[in-house]
């Protein structure tokens, strides 16, 4: 129950493509209000991942919809980082 409440106050992080491999031991939730803040927090323990997240070709989605990098994050949001897609 406590973890559920804490989860609602945090941002849920998702990674896809090459980023998912770099993020294998990254936190699943984080407390932040902006994407830059998320990346800065990841820099400490995951510098390679944080560097890749700053690449201009990385796509960002908030609550499963494509978003720009200046979005204000709210508690409970799902923030997704995606490498350029390669389907088909």
């Amino acid at each position: 129950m406590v973890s559920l409440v804490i989860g609602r106050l945090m941002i849920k992080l998702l990674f896809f493509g090459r980023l998912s491999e770099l993020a294998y031991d990254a936190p699943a939730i984080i407390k932040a209000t902006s994407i830059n803040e998320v990346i800065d927090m990841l820099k400490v323990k995951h510098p390679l991942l944080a560097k890749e997240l700053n690449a201009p070709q990385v796509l960002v989605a908030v609550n499963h919809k494509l978003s720009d990098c200046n979005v204000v994050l709210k508690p409970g949001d799902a923030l997704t980082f995606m490498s350029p897609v390669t389907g088909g």
Partner: protein
Amino acid sequence: MHTICRIQNDAFDVVKLHDALCENSKNTGAVATFTGLVRGFDKSGEHPAIDYMYLQHYPQMTESSLKLIIEQVNSRFDLLAATVIHRIGKLKPGDPIVFVGIASEHRRDGFQATQFIMDYIKTQAAIWKQVSLNDQKYWVEVNKTDLLALKYWQ
């Protein structure tokens, strides 16, 4: 327009999908289809065969991104039916990955719509490929020709 859009692990039956498009409407005068397969060699061409390909997707976005592509193609061409099936998971060389089929009154709409959908899937659908080769894995990089192909439609 009648639409089928699916993400699935299982193989698909190209003949059944094709026949369904043929039978969809009495106004159908053309059915154009494309089937993409797992290539058996790696990107450098140095190795005769890859072991397998893993297709990762973003469940909450994959189908919606494909549906958006179908909406776009329907607004640009005169179509009667569209079928888009994309597989995910572990596939081996020669396995079908993607099927795109279009039923239309005339052939030009079918040819162009099929190409449009594939060019958009390559660059817009929330799907990623990882190749396994000689016990090593690498993520497939974006192909510059795919990005150029997209610009043709913009």
